[in-house]
């Protein structure tokens, strides 16, 4: 592994005096497809949100390719949990995907033909082109997740942060999404995913971070995805059989 895409130093986040993340140091190499795993309340979403500046950490710093995140925003795309927005908002699927172009447009400038073309291409990639004019409340959960993914793809970033993209989607959508993530990795992008299903970690990801308020371990799945780390993270005697 060559360059470090994301570097987190001494990150500490607290709600109401209670630490949610404690002194996290993390280095994510370029080009990995990484899962962040840990029990509920381990701070997985919080980690992503504080890396992205959505939450304010008490201490710590984040750098993207060696520079502060603020200067590197165009390199980073975010896929929030789909439950974090109101899907009854009056807009269409295409319009939501177009929002991915707003960052590069900057203030005031409106999206034009070029942006629309990019959005349509992203919709095609996630297999949602036929739904471009659909009101977003009339999309299924899996389709909404694909729309969010397309919105991030439009940003054409180098690093993708995704908060539980597999939550509440059916098997075919899950396969479609993981194929897109794998093709992103193939294109040299770095993908960081908050993930819940431990069974699929070895199959989907090549890199993993165990988190439970503190960082337990981080590294290649084949080296560190073992019973020892799972037990340390989940606090119970956790046994998974990893296919050799």
């Amino acid at each position: 592994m060559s360059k470090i895409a994301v570097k987190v130093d001494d990150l500490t986040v607290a709600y109401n005096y209670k630490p949610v993340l404690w002194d996290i140091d993390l280095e994510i190499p370029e080009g990995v497809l990484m899962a962040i795993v840990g029990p509920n309340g381990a701070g997985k979403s919080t980690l992503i949100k504080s890396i992205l500046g959505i939450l304010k950490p008490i201490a710590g710093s984040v750098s993207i390719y060696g520079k502060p995140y603020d200067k590197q925003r165009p390199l980073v795309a975010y896929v929030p949990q789909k439950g974090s927005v109101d899907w009854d908002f009056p807009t269409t699927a295409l319009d939501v995907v177009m929002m991915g172009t707003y960052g590069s447009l900057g203030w005031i400038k409106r999206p034009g033909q070029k942006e629309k073309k990019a959005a349509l291409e992203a919709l095609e990639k996630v297999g949602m082109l036929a739904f471009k004019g659909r009101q977003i409340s009339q999309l299924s959960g899996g389709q909404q997740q694909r729309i969010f993914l397309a919105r991030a793809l439009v940003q054409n970033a180098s690093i993708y942060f995704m908060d539980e993209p597999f939550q509440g989607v059916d098997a075919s959508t899950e396969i479609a999404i993981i194929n897109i993530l794998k093709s992103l990795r193939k294109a040299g992008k770095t993908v960081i995913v908050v993930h819940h299903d431990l069974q699929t970690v070895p199959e989907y990801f090549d890199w993993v971070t165990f988190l439970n308020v503190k960082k337990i371990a981080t590294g290649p799945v084949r080296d560190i995805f073992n019973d020892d780390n799972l037990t340390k993270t989940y606090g119970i005697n956790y046994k998974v059989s990893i296919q050799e």
Partner: protein
Amino acid sequence: MEFMDITEYIQLVFTDYTLRTITLGTAILGAVTGMLGSFAVLRKQSLLGDAISHAALPGIAIAFLITGAKDSNTLLLGALVSGLIGTFWIRGIVTKTHLKSDTALGLILSLFFGFGMLLLTFIQKQPNANQAGLDKYLFGQAATLVESDVWIMAIVTGVCLLVMLLFWKEFKILLFDEDYTKTLGFNTKFIDILITTFIVLAIVLGLQTVGVVLMSAMLLAPAAAARQWTNSLGVMVFLAAIFGALSGVFGTAISASQNNLSTGPVIVLVASVFVVVSFIFSPSRGILFKHIRFVQNRNDLQLHKTLAFMYHIAETHEDISHPHTIKILNNFRGYTRSSLKKLEDKGYIIIKGNMWSLTDHGFETASNLYNQQHRTDE
């Protein structure tokens, strides 16, 4: 109103200074509050308007106590200041403590309104002849509108429209997904303050006409009605502005034709009529069409079930149009005379006496029914 009265009234609107001023003022007010109300409703800050308008009351009283003046501009400036203070306190409470926003809104609303009422009663007890009439800001008094008030409303509305068109994309993305907006590098605090400031401005402008107590309805009713008719943000904002303006015009007309009705409450009632009509009659979201679709679907399903039952019987015969007795359907309770008639009308079956037989068309439809079922199940 009689027909003659309407034409007379319209003539009066164009010739009578007072009526023209009030009509224009309430129409502009309705348009700007409808527009901005759409943003408040979509941000789930429907109660923000209520809190802001109540928070404006002490500002009016204090402005009077300090300056002794009673012209609307001075008093509304006081309202603006205390409305803004109330708004920033609400934001402060939400971000600094762990109280939810509804608690913060309720707290600020009652605190400021209570303080305002206290000041009003204090002012009324003073031996100052000038004090009478401050309480018009409680329920508004459109009759006190003068041309300069309307000009101020028009200017604020114009600026608001300009800013909205300029920052349309920023407003939209903030309303939909604030966290994501932050990651794109937009200063969400700035956009938020911009929206909120305009909401406060619109509310303050309406206090003289509609009053502290009912002002939030001007913000919410047109927006809630508009949401029923469209799935596009742009159309929703536009419709809300139209509904708001029409509420102003009709409300003024009704109150002008009935001498004793005060304008503010009538405008709010007209706006509520828009809401009720929209809730019932909107084609996609309205109660009426939803129910009609529900009944239609249920009837269609009943027909399809009967047809499917017939299909299973006909399937076992070489000749699909072999006649069967209607009695055979007794095993299946979902049919009625009228549903059989409907199936016949659609050309699915032929009824002769008390025998029925499936047509080719009916057989094909029934088998497709199954295929479609399978396809959607996958």
